[in-house]
């Protein structure tokens, strides 16, 4: 009964969790209302895969894919689409940024790269109707096996196909059947292991719910092959829908004689029962599973003997996984050669992977074995949501290991995964991003296996507890470095001496994170730092933790919520003396992990800061210079953010340092590297003046000789904060032509030379960072006729801040992505740039897509000036001999105290890091000040008030509803490009106070409450 339209409504557990049932009911109602029942077929199907988009529905024959449906959408779809033939575009699946409307299922990339073998019926047939399964070729394989093949033929065919068990261990299925067939015994059993307990794996559920007959058919074929007339399906009780559908399927098959006696008149008898678990992870282990079917506690027993010799009731038993069994009928029908033509040399066929965690398209995907991890995560899974960075993927659940970004090119098959310390396992892929702490994840996995351990054998029961205790200690900041060796020893011992698979694999997540993320463990132990902001005992609030200089955001935001600008300002000054500068140009690391962002949007921390920062400048708040300074003399080379921060905090420690600046202006890169439209110079100058007033002398135009000379002139310690001012070269022909210059040189020229005029000039800027954006936008303001930015990757990879890129585009700057220059052409000066198009292929070691030149795609564009913004390195000429440097030309320091190879000489900022941010330089300068104080034998402690929790008086509950964050007004693009007027106009004080009240106060309960005394101390600090 072919109808005009077939509507497939997903009724997998995930879609049901988003109420697909209601959708189906409403659909039926509407279709009946419109008298379309004769024309439209509603089919309830199993899981289609893209769970996070549920409820989903596909309409055939046109293949329209509707997602995120609600009951209220249905009347419109029925009216417009089913009746008038116009699909409702707003509800159709759109992909990626392009929002390209994908109208047909075959062009959705989520499916395009997939090869559905096991899942071929899922989402297409009604799992509760055996006729649909038979209509799709079901039970033909069973008929073929029973009528045309001997059991040995079947085993041979399966062996030749090369299929390996899909449940985790990857043991060849044909071999397992052969052993069971050869074992002596009057009775034999086939068991389907549907106790899918691996967290992160849910393909078995999808197959059982969506295509139960394929599993039953596989079981019967297996039974015939090994000589069993009785089979069990052991399903976990957490899958009630799967159990229900299996029971319906068994009843239907029994009714028409496909289960029972004398199947297909061949004399083959087969009986099948469903057994339900009761919530024990260990029952997925085959010997435990057998115990559970027998009605006992599900504890494993030692092997050998293997179940093939002595299994259920001590009879030979083959235990196979759901996915394996659901593949069998396809191999029988299409042949072992077909199957073994898919996949790699040792891993044949397709495998279903379950994508979960931090990935855009969660759900099931079925791909040929050997597809690269990157393709699965980034092409099919569409990568990581919310512009976060991919960190690692956990493969194989708690028995597996993590695979970091450097292995994204790895082909996914049994052998390759083993090499990197992970396993295919049951196929769970849990994606993790920069906000996930690997130590915490490892601890979580151990906690899981520890609580699921059956307790029978000591290594697993006691050993995992010990590992957990150590990990717990580390996440609390109480770890010792020796702990890491202990974890490794213990882990290996548990692996080698546990009774069953649970214990033998449980330490894997710890061992593999220790292998790839040891630095994170060390950070937790030595620096008491959790970079992902997860281990809450190590910090006050995620914002504070994320700030390189650990500015106490949580406190200044709370003060701002109370309108206490002075207190907020003082708190900021304790860790960063450039609030006004950072309020304008900081990438705001603090806002990324803001807890509020998980609810609606992060608090606009940077905009809040601007209010008290500018207020402090207007009010002229000063910090008293040390009246009786300590006797030691300190020289600082460079007046950038690192140098001046070091100087300021030295004054707070009782010194009066001298800063030597080679340029005629103060402020280093802040002065010459950031244009006025982002950072007005009067703001910067005021903050520098405040630092000078606190007891710092800055000598401009002073080129110093060597460090030794400084020391000879009576300086007891030196801080080098010379930044990185030498632009890097690109290394293509024509680079030396006049008119090709470095990004920083260009900005310096634009900032120091008032007569710089670019009218009627065509500019080409190479690079994708902040400097490239600043150069391009500066050129636009200086009247350039055209400004083209060339970047070799895509927009997502551009290191510049999102807002900068958007603003640049508004200012009509042409950004050519996936392009690279190959030659600069011109006679006496630059005239043209020869470009080549790039395309992504594979991934680099940092997990970024690798751009590869597209052969024959070169073309030329005219250029009067080319600016290369490829990063900078420090100009070390004068003391390159005195301090040790790294390969890339930066200064080598002791990471613990910022001291260089020369005693008493410290360094920080870009001179050490290469091009970085102001706040990182501030952090280095501040920490160096502490080190210098300690170098002289003092304690390195500031006399700041003790940290207290800020009391608030507003009703916090009022702010626990959805409130969008406040965004400042921007100067209009048309007007702002005519001058260097500041683009961002900032928030009003009233708005900033309201915005501050959105803070969720993550630091609560970690410190004592503020007192009058604190306020007095704040007054004293000024």
């Amino acid at each position, binding site marked *: 009964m072919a109808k005009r339209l077939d509507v497939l409504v997903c009724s997998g*557990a*995930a879609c*049901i*969790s*988003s109420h697909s049932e209601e959708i189906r009911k409403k659909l039926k109602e509407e279709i009946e209302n419109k008298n379309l029942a004769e024309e439209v077929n509603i089919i309830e199907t199993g899981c289609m895969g*893209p*769970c*996070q988009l*549920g409820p989903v529905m596909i309409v055939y024959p046109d293949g329209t894919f509707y997602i995120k449906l609600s009951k209220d959408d249905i009347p419109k779809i029925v009216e417009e689409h089913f009746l008038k033939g116009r699909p409702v575009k707003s509800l159709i699946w759109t992909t990626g940024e392009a929002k390209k409307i994908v109208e047909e299922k075959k062009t959705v990339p989520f499916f395009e790269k997939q090869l559905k073998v096991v899942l071929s019926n899922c989402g297409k047939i009604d799992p509760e109707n055996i006729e649909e399964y038979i209509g799709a070729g079901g039970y033909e394989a069973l008929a073929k096996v029973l009528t045309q093949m001997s059991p040995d033929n079947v085993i041979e065919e399966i062996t030749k196909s090369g299929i390996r068990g899909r449940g985790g261990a990857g043991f060849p299925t044909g071999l397992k059947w052969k052993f069971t067939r050869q074992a002596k015994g009057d009775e034999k059993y086939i068991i389907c292991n549907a106790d*899918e*307990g*691996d*967290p*992160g*794996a*849910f393909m*078995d*559920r999808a197959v059982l719910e969506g295509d139960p007959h394929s599993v039953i058919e596989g079981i019967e074929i297996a039974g015939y092959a090994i000589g069993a007339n009785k089979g069990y399906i052991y399903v976990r*009780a*957490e*899958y*009630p*829908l799967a159990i229900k559908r299996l029971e319906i399927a068994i009843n239907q098959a029994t009714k028409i004689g496909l289960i029972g006696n004398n199947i297909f008149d061949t004399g083959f008898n087969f009986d099948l029962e469903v*057994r*339900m*678990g*009761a*919530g*024990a*992870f260990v029952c997925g282990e085959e010997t435990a599973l057998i115990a*559970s*079917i*027998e*009605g*006992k*506690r*599900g*504890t494993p027993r030692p092997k050998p003997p293997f179940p093939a010799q002595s299994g259920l009731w001590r009879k030979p038993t083959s235990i196979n996984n759901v996915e394996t069994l659901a593949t069998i009928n396809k191999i029988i029908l299409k042949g072992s050669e077909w199957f073994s033509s898919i996949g790699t040399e040792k891993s044949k066929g397709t495998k279903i992977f*379950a*994508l*979960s*965690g*931090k990935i855009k398209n*969660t759900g*099931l995907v079925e791909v040929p074995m050997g597809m690269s991890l990157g393709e699965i995560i980034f092409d099919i899974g569409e990568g990581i949501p919310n512009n976060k960075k991919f960190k690692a993927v*956990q493969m194989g*659940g*708690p028995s597996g290991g993590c695979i970091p970004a450097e292995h994204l090119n790895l082909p996914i098959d049994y052998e390759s995964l083993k090499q990197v310390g992970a396993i295919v396992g049951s196929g*769970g892929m*849990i994606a993790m991003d920069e906000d*996930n702490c690997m130590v915490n*994840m490892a601890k*979580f*996995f151990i906690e*899981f296996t520890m*609580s*699921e351990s*059956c307790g029978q054998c000591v290594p697993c029961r006691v050993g995992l507890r010990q590992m957990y205790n150590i990990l717990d200690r580390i996440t609390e900041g109480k770890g010792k470095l020796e702990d890491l060796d202990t974890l490794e020893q213990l882990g290996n011992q548990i692996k080698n001496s546990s009774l069953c698979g649970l214990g033998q694999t449980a330490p894997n997540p710890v061992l593999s994170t220790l292998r790839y993320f040891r630095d994170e463990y060390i950070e937790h132990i030595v620096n008491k730092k959790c970079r992902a902001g997860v281990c809450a005992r190590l910090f006050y609030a995620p914002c504070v933790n994320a700030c390189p200089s650990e500015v106490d955001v949580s406190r200044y935001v709370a003060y701002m919520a109370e309108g206490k600008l002075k207190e907020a300002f003082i708190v900021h000054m304790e860790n960063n003396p450039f609030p006004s500068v950072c309020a304008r140009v900081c990438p705001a690391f603090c806002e990324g992990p803001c807890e509020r962002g*998980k*609810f609606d949007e992060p608090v606009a921390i940077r905009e809040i800061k601007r209010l008290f920062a500018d207020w402090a400048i207007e009010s002229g708040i000063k910090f008293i210079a040390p009246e009786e300074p300590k006797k030691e003399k300190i020289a600082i080379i460079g007046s950038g953010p690192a140098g001046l921060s070091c100087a300021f905090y030295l004054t707070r420690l009782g010194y009066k340092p001298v800063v030597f600046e080679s340029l005629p202006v103060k402020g280093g890169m802040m002065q010459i590297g950031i244009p006025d439209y982002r950072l007005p110079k009067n703001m910067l100058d005021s903050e520098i003046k405040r630092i000078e007033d606190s007891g710092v002398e800055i000598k401009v135009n002073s080129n110093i000789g060597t460090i030794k000379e400084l020391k000879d002139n009576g300086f007891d310690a030196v801080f080098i904060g010379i930044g990185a001012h030498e632009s890097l070269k690109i290394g293509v022909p024509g680079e030396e032509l006049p008119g090709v210059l470095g990004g920083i040189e260009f900005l310096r020229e634009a900032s120091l030379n008032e007569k710089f005029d670019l009218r009627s000039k065509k500019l080409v800027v190479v690079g994708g960072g902040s400097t490239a954006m600043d150069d391009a936008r500066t050129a636009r303001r200086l009247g350039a006729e055209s400004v083209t930015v060339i970047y070799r990757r895509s927009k997502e990879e551009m290191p510049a801040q999102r807002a900068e890129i958007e603003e640049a585009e508004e200012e009509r700057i042409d950004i050519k992505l996936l392009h690279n220059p190959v030659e600069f052409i011109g006679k006496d000066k630059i005239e043209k740039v020869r470009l080549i198009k790039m395309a992504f292929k594979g991934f680099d070691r940092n997990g970024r897509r690798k751009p590869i030149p597209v052969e024959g795609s070169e073309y030329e564009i005219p250029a009067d000036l080319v600016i290369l913004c490829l990063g900078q390195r420090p100009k070390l000429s004068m003391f390159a001999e005195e301090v040790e440097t790294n390969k890339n030309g930066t200064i080598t320091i002791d990471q613990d105290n910022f001291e260089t190879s020369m005693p008493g000489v410290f360094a920080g900022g870009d001179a050490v890091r290469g091009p970085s941010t102001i706040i990182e330089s501030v952090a280095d300068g501040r920490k160096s000040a502490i080190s210098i104080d300690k170098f002289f034998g003092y304690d390195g402690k500031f006399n700041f008030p003790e940290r207290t929790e800020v009391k608030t008086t507003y009703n916090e509950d009022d702010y626990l509803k959805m409130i969008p964050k406040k965004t400042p007004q921007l100067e209009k693009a048309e007007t702002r490009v005519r001058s260097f007027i500041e683009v961002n106009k900032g928030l009003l004080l009233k708005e900033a106070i309201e915005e501050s009240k959105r803070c969720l106060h993550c630091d609560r309960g970690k410190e004592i409450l503020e007192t009058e005394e604190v306020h007095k101390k704040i007054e004293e600090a000024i």
Partner: protein
Amino acid sequence: MTKEEILNKYDNRAENLLQILHDFQQNNSQNYLTKDDLKIIANYLSLPESFVQGVVTFYSMFSLTPRGKYVIRICESPPCHLMGSSTIIKEVSDYLGIDLNETTKDGLFTLELSSCLGVCGVAPAMTINEEVFGNLDSQKIKDIIEEKRRVK
């Protein structure tokens, strides 16, 4: 269904123990197995009571204490953990005013954890009896609980 009716559904073979326990528990209005139940079942299957007790305590889904009409099981698998299940657990616990494995005074809700519900694609997730709820957030859990309270 009476207890006898349940027992009559099954042969008196030991292998049927788990299924019988499931049925007894489901049949109990407070979702648990009484001491008496264990005795009856042990007797029927000719098993020592201690053996039955041992099996019951091994599996996390069996309870020997009365539970609410609605058993909420929040998934604490790693994918759910990654997507914020610890916050969900805390919020449900605060909202209901009970700790894990406790029952609300009105006898409506019991809060438990599950090792994995197998709906990782919509993490964080939970079930209430056999109904699955995914993509949970603070608002959603309150709506779901209120809905159950209304229905009772």
